[in-house]
């Protein structure tokens, strides 16, 4: 009944999610969706951290995920504020039209 799952299945899932995040980062043209793809990649890496923490019975792996979450929260707050101010100046979020540093 309690069928175990090989640990590398979790790692393969993490790799697949990371790859989907990379694809999204490349093909999406809306700045906010590109940002979401970055979050997806962070989550995929977190999954492999938790898998290795389980594999080696190391609590520090889970602590690392905790810190990644905190940094991701800070990053999301600042990133979305930057997106809002870009939208206010440019009136668009299409990455192809946001290609100048100048206003």
């Amino acid at each position, binding site marked *: 009944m309690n069928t175990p799952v090989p640990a590398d299945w979790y790692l393969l899932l993490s790799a697949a999610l990371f790859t989907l995040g990379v694809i999204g980062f490349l093909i*999406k043209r809306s700045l906010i969706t590109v940002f979401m793809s970055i979050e997806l990649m962070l989550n995929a890496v977190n999954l492999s951290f938790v898998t290795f923490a389980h594999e080696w019975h190391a609590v520090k792996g889970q602590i690392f995920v905790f810190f990644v979450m905190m940094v991701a929260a800070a990053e999301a707050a600042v990133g979305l504020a930057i997106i809002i101010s870009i939208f206010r100046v440019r009136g668009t*979020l299409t990455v192809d039209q946001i290609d100048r540093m100048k206003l």
Partner: protein
Amino acid sequence: MHLVLFLIFALFALAGAANLLLQKHPINSALSLIVVMSSLAVLYLLLGAEFLAMAQVIVYAGAIMVLFTFVVMLLNEGREEKTWGSRAARTVGFPAVVVLLATLAAAILRAGRHYGMVSLSDGITTTQDLSKVLFRDLLLPFELTSVLILIAILGAVALARKDDGNA
């Protein structure tokens, strides 16, 4: 039981991530990202990380994604249009991404026979175990994250504030 739960929620995560790419409107992408994060929380529970599962739901699926959906609705940016850039990214990016996935999968599968099995009876890492490490060995980094979050909040307020001249 573990196998069934793993397969169901791994499928949810993959389907949500694929849906994130396929949807044209940012709000649909944000909602499918919430599905991915919630199913990852269940996978964390299966791996015995109870605190991280709760933090995943509260911090990621809760706080961060609410911020995302809020910004999407605030800016009301419509469907994204296809441009030359996305076609270039498709032609150049997809082979590179396939190579990346193949490399990762090959590395994992080669190392995989050294890894053990994950089962529901492995026991959990309790919040107590986690906090013993976090508040004893890693107290300084933990306190530094609070400073980081404070700076990020100040930065977000300063960036998103409407510039009405008397700043």
